[in-house]
């Protein structure tokens, strides 16, 4: 039986197929309009491994945080596949996946994902044998506040994720901070965490980690008047 993992939360789209261990994977950098890439990758993985669709028994999905459109592509594809094949979708938080990938470190792990508009999703972890534990709740933080937070923090720490998007390189190179891989979430990172999750929601209860309320400013001219009608 095969398992499929996918991640579309950032600049990279990736899919990987497993049968106990990794069989094959793809990672591609996307520009705008990445919509066809994911299914192409999945199709190629099945071609390459000669796996049959009906032998797929679980999907591991990166539910964010990250770029909204990418996340929705990942969700739509997994729900289309999961719905037809009747298999569970195991949602995995991308911040957790990044931290888990660095769990052999002995430092505090700071996980960082770009969510555009000069903001990051951020979460801190401590390594424990075989994994990591969250030290804080995931939060949205502006680049400026992140820079302050990191430079005020005297702990020895490891930075994983989109740290290359921080322009103030002085923070990144101070003596307490080490920059580490992974720099972005891959399907493999997602699988490695997802595999440990035993309690997952029903397919229709999977929610994306948007972390922000939707922007509701209407783009077109918003008229509003105070009209006095006779009735």
């Amino acid at each position, binding site marked *: 039986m095969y398992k499929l993992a996918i991640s579309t939360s950032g600049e990279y789209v990736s899919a990987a197929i497993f049968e106990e261990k990794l069989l094959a994977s793809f990672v591609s950098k996307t520009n705008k309009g990445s*919509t*066809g890439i*994911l*299914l*192409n990758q*999945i*199709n190629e993985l099945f071609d390459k491994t000669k796996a049959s*669709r009906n032998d797929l028994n679980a999907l591991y999905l990166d539910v964010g945080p990250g770029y*909204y*459109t990418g996340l*929705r*592509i990942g*969700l*739509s*594809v*997994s*729900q*289309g*596949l999961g*719905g*037809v*094949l009747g298999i569970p979708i195991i949602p995995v938080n991308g911040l957790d996946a990044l931290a888990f990938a660095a769990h052999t470190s002995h430092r505090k792990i700071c996980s960082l994902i770009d969510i555009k508009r000069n903001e990051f999703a951020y979460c801190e972890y401590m390594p424990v044998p075989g994994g990591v534990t969250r030290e804080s709740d995931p939060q949205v933080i502006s680049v400026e506040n992140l820079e302050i937070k990191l430079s005020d923090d005297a702990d020895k720490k490891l930075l994983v994720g989109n740290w290359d998007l921080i322009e103030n390189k002085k923070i990144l190179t101070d003596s307490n901070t080490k920059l580490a891989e992974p720099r972005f979430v891959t399907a493999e990172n997602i699988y490695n965490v997802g595999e440990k999750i035993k309690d997952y929601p029903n*397919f*229709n209860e999977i*929610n*994306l980690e*948007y972390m922000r309320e*939707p*922007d*509701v400013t*209407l*783009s*077109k*001219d*918003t*008229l*509003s*008047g105070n*009209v*006095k*009608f*006779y*009735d």
Partner: protein
Amino acid sequence: MQSEKIILGFETSCDETAIALMKGDNLLINKISSQVEIHEKFGGVVPEVASRAHAEMIRNLFHSSINECGIDLSEIDIVASTDGPGLAGSLVVGYNFAKSVAWALEKPFYAVDHMVGHLSAPLIEHPNMEPPFLSLLVSGGHTQIVLVEEWGKYNLLGSTIDDAAGEAFDKLSRFCGFGFPGGPAIQKISEGGDPKKVVLPRPKTSNKFDYSFSGLKTAAVYFLRKLSEEDQLLKKDFAASYQEAIVDSLMDIFVKAIKETGVKNISGGGGVMANSRLREKIVFFSENNNKNLYLPSPRLSTDNAAMICVAAKNELITNKMNIDDIRLSSIIS
């Protein structure tokens, strides 16, 4: 392609999550999950809110559609979905969901242009409709006069140079606090109102088949701002007058195009085509001018997935495509 094939269609280009199943000429199911209540408080469709809602709704809509029409997934022969035009964030949800359903079923996938969907919608109720025909496509996102010379040969004669007709309804409705969407709200309020009470312009443009609605909206707002308590203007009279101005503008130019092209068959589509005053006028015109009118019913005029199914089927038939050919070419782009 044999006529009894089962087509599963998806449409998520704006604020309706829609799924339909068609077997031959029969519509097995046509489900629309509207987001009107969600967007109501903003007075318009908010793109990010719409995409989030599509992503949450589509899975349940898919399962309930399949369950309700009692078919087995394996009976589906082809999957079709709108691939544009529309709100990018909304389109990706239906398109990717549809394509992955096709992939999982190992069935061909067929992408349909949203406007071709509207042009083909009358075929659901009038399978005998044939080109050439002239269609008036009017909604919150589009206002177009399209000459369908033959299936696949679409000649855009005119479109709006500013707001779409539906936007003209929405914007004024927001200004007056009539509700969202503006078209149905204004139609309801205008019941029993006098359409001649307020004189509003019927804007013209330099291209004879193009529309313009922003001047009308501005004129109406200007009129309302000057209004005093003593004027005793009834809401229903104003709504009826505004609706009449939009409907007249739509009809004037459409009729001009009908006369100039000399077509015998006329048609329409889009959310504004569900407006009862517009339908009344278009029916009146066709009856008095000896034209064949192929109007989709209101439910099939607004965005829906049945039109995607019928458009896919129609394109496959006209292009003499075999579904095995599509399987090779477009199951994965």
